[in-house]
């Protein structure tokens, strides 16, 4: 009797329940359609026009913006900068993140240490940029002072004023800011590895290094692939930190595509041209996004 009642109740509830689910999803879907999907399409549309920032009217110019980009010599340099910035930052943050994850994965380390190590994740980019400019100040900055004393740079010079080292500084600061995310994901993966595997290995006479190579590393493979893809997307499009620290200088040596887009849009007011730049950046990362989404959704089959 009881079971019968349960089934009947359940049946009666279902259609209504689904309706509520659909009602609940509507605000979110509506918002995304209007303020994310539409803007992305609008951006693609603008990339085929000669729209300017201030003027309202514009006309179609087909692929002229794209032709202009690919004949612009600076574009190639900025693509190269973007690649250097992205590859170095991603390798840096993943290596540091993994090292620290291995460090906090030990039994003896408490959650206090982990909390402390997560802090850079939430420090405002503006604050980091200001400190960086302060410690790199040629006259009074402590890092500049150390470098000057060691004879690495000239008296009163700042590492931010030299093309090669300005990019290095940006990458180091970005690694400092962004390692907590990989650290957290690696740490969660490490925690998920079956402890018995290590015990079995040590019974078989495997040392720490052997266990690491044959148990830990293979388990981290999938995580690493997904992290690399996600961090490439985030880093290649990251604007705030490089812009606030160097503004793309000296001599364009730290200008990457996001800064180029910003300058085209709000520096020279060529909205159409800037849009086509961002379409190119978006297309080159599109496959990464598709891969990341497919991988994450299929890993978590319920979603």
């Amino acid at each position: 009797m009881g079971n019968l009642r349960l089934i009947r109740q359940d049946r009666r509830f279902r259609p209504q329940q689904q309706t509520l689910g659909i009602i609940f999803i509507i605000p979110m879907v509506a918002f995304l359609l209007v303020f994310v999907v539409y803007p992305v399409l609008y951006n693609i549309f603008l990339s085929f026009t000669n729209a300017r920032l201030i003027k309202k009217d514009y006309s179609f110019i087909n692929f002229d913006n794209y032709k202009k980009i690919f004949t612009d010599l600076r574009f190639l340099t900025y693509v190269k900068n973007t690649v250097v910035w992205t590859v170095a930052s991603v390798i840096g943050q993943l290596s540091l993140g993994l090292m620290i994850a291995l460090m906090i994965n030990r039994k003896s380390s408490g959650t206090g240490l982990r909390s402390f190590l997560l802090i850079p994740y939430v420090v405002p980019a503006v604050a980091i940029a200001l400190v960086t400019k302060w410690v790199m100040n040629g006259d009074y900055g402590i890092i500049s002072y150390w470098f000057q004393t060691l004879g690495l740079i000239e008296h009163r010079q700042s590492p931010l004023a030299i093309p090669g080292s300005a990019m290095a500084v940006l990458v180091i600061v970005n690694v400092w800011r962004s390692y907590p995310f990989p650290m957290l994901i690696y740490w969660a993966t490490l925690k998920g590895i079956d402890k018995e595997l290590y015990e079995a290995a040590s019974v078989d006479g495997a040392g720490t290094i052997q266990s690491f190579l044959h148990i830990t590393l293979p388990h981290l493979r999938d995580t690493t692939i997904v992290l690399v893809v996600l961090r490439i997307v985030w880093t290649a499009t990251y604007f705030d930190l490089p812009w606030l620290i160097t503004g793309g200088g000296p001599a364009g040596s730290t200008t990457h595509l996001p800064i180029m887009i910003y300058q085209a849009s709000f520096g020279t007011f060529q909205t159409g041209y800037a849009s086509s730049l961002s379409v190119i950046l978006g297309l080159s990362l599109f496959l990464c996004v598709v891969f990341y989404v497919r991988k994450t959704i299929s890993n978590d089959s319920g979603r």
Partner: protein
Amino acid sequence: MKKGILYSIQKNFWYLIFVLMVMVLVGFPLFWMASSSFKPSVELFKSPPLILPETPTLHWYMSAFSDSTVIRYFINSLIVSLSTMGINIVIATLGAYSLARFSYRGRRFITAAILSAYCIPPIMLMIPLYRIIAGMGMNSSYAGVVLGHLTLTLPFCVWILIPFFRKVPKEMEEAAIIDGASAFNVFWCIILPVCIPGILSAGIMVFILSWNEYLLSSVLVMSDTMKTLTVGLANYISSTEIDWGTIMALGTATTLPIVIMFSAIQKYFVEGLTAGAVKG
């Protein structure tokens, strides 16, 4: 006891050195910002630089906060971040609950869309949002920035909320249904109260993201009196005469509340992010 500690230090010597090194590297920029903000002018520009202020002073904080524009920036940031957080909590809670607990056509597609939207960076949305928001005349109010921040934070918020709703045992819902509760009542009276900590911490994470955001904040507001703190701070550095003491004081004052808020919720943040992230 003492022998035990000594022994464990000896055994873990290299480990402890590594931990110490990492902690110094992580802490140094923040320590230096705070330390500089308490140094009087003479010490600030001393060579070689002093590690700690010799005669600590609150001078920079006093002068920064006696400036009414600075107070304005703080209030603006607070208004923008709180609005973003409030709207976000409502939309994301409903959306995440729907995605976590219901089954209807298109649910998987919407989940994939949310995750894709999470990958769309501000630099891609900057140009179209600028035109849309300026076209609607919203760049003379807070609404433009709030909308901009919502595009960045909503997908993230939904994504980390889904696991919180998943975790609620199905039996709790079923029991209520048998007692004759409507679907809405199940959500309102059973699910919501259990998930409040998760929802609030996701909301605080949104607050933090909104508080820290620079690009859209600088682009989507025209009037100077409505600029947020990050934009105001960034303008200090581009002015010709850089007032380092005030900048370090303001940097510290901007960062400290965020770090405190984050410390309070980081347990939930870790839970939500590692559940929503990759499983190797």
